[in-house]
């Protein structure tokens, strides 16, 4: 066998070598894409990515639906993050998603039993919801309760 060449049993199967090459290429391109994106947007590389950066950015730009979607994803993946749940609850309440805001504050209370701020906010939200139900009942002549 010529020097420097591996014997047949020592060589990795072709499909494994292709798979590895593909994985390295994917990793390389996604990392390169990341570098290009960040250099073109912030002109510096991040030290620690904030998963809620996009959500907060969208709130600032007025895209509340997009921001709420990001908060939903985040809290699905990090269901114990009370601070993020509070932010999401506030955003949901301020954009008229009262039901979602109530459910979010209930999750805050499940995690932080005696959270007085969350209790007060939840009470407020329930009143808003009841008022909404009363108005709707009066308008359509039916009771929702």
């Amino acid at each position: 066998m010529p020097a420097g060449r591996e014997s047949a049993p020592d060589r990795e199967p072709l499909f494994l070598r292709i798979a590895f090459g593909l994985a390295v290429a994917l990793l390389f391109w996604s990392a390169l894409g990341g570098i290009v994106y960040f250099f073109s947007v912030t002109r510096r590389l991040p030290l620690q990515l904030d998963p809620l950066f996009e959500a907060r950015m969208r709130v600032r730009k007025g895209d509340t639906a997009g921001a709420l979607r990001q908060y939903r994803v985040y809290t699905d993946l990090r269901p114990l993050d009370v601070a993020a749940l509070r932010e999401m609850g506030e955003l949901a309440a301020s954009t008229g998603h009262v039901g979602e805001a109530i459910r979010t504050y209930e999750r805050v209370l499940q995690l932080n039993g005696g959270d007085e701020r969350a209790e007060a906010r939840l009470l407020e939200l329930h009143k808003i919801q009841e008022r909404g139900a009363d108005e709707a009942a009066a308008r359509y002549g039916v009771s929702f309760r």
Partner: protein
Amino acid sequence: MSAIAVAPSQVAPEPGPGPAIVRVGRAFVHPAFDLLVIGGGLSLLFTAALVWKFRPAIDNVFTPSIAWVALVANQAHFAASTVRLYTKPGARRELRFLSLGFPLVTLAVLSYAVARPEGLGATLTALYLTWSPYHYAAQAYGLALMYSYRSGCALSLREKQVVRAACLAPFVVQFIAGRGFGLAWILAHTSPALDVPWLRAQAALWLTWVPVVLMVGLFAHMAIKRRVTLPLVSLCTVLSNAVWLLWLTSIDAFVYATVFHSIQYLAIVTIFHVKNQQQAGRGGWAFHAAGFYLRCVALGYLLFQLVPLGYFLFGFGLAESVLVVITIINLHHFIVDAYIWRLRQDSNYKLVTAAV
């Protein structure tokens, strides 16, 4: 560092009769370094300072520098198992699928989970949170056994079982008492009616002292019956694992445990890498240690900061890109780790037993 196993037929000889000697254990670098960094002794002192009265001061120093600490310790440690897989002599030949095929499988799962964060992403996150305490326990067990054997203190099967139980008890506590993962996660998806949170909390409370009782009991039993004790590094490794998973969690300071676990891992994996390189007769230890560590930091940065940005560029949300990447890197680390530390019939075995 999760599955170290030593061939039973090649255990070191027992010391003869005489007074039991409390020993630090046979160190890789220096007894103080091995005890404090790999054994976790430093983390025990740190926890004492945290619990006593220095919590605000420590938090004030740590919080502003958390991104740097995460980069040089946590993220580098996740990357270290991958760097080790590709630099360990013979690993590519012995672990063909893991080293060549598994990266593509991982990227495929990652991409699907980023596209379906509420379904697969959330499930994988709960899985990694469940697995993580087990990974800590397995690392503690592996290190405890390795130092024990390396220090000429061969453990019987029963003694190994006691050490394993002491290492696994904190994982069991996390499993039954954890919120959003472990038993709570399984019951929420199978039979929510069977979930009794107060019962889980009570059971976890009873198990909290198991590691201390078992290890102190084993230590005393061995000293009295066999006139030989577990090396202090082994004892310290098991107890620090319990402190990380139980006490630091209970005072909402688990983030410090992740740092100490990472430093412990980086230290032992770098030692093994350097010894492999020295066995091959290449260069000095500082060069190899620095080279290995810098590769870990670079790969950690690439995986944790740049890859999520790549997904973001391709149109996925930043939240799912960042969080799912973290989840998948964790799972990849757990799996790779379970293979690269197997000692039996392995080059690692020679490094542990050298000059015993």
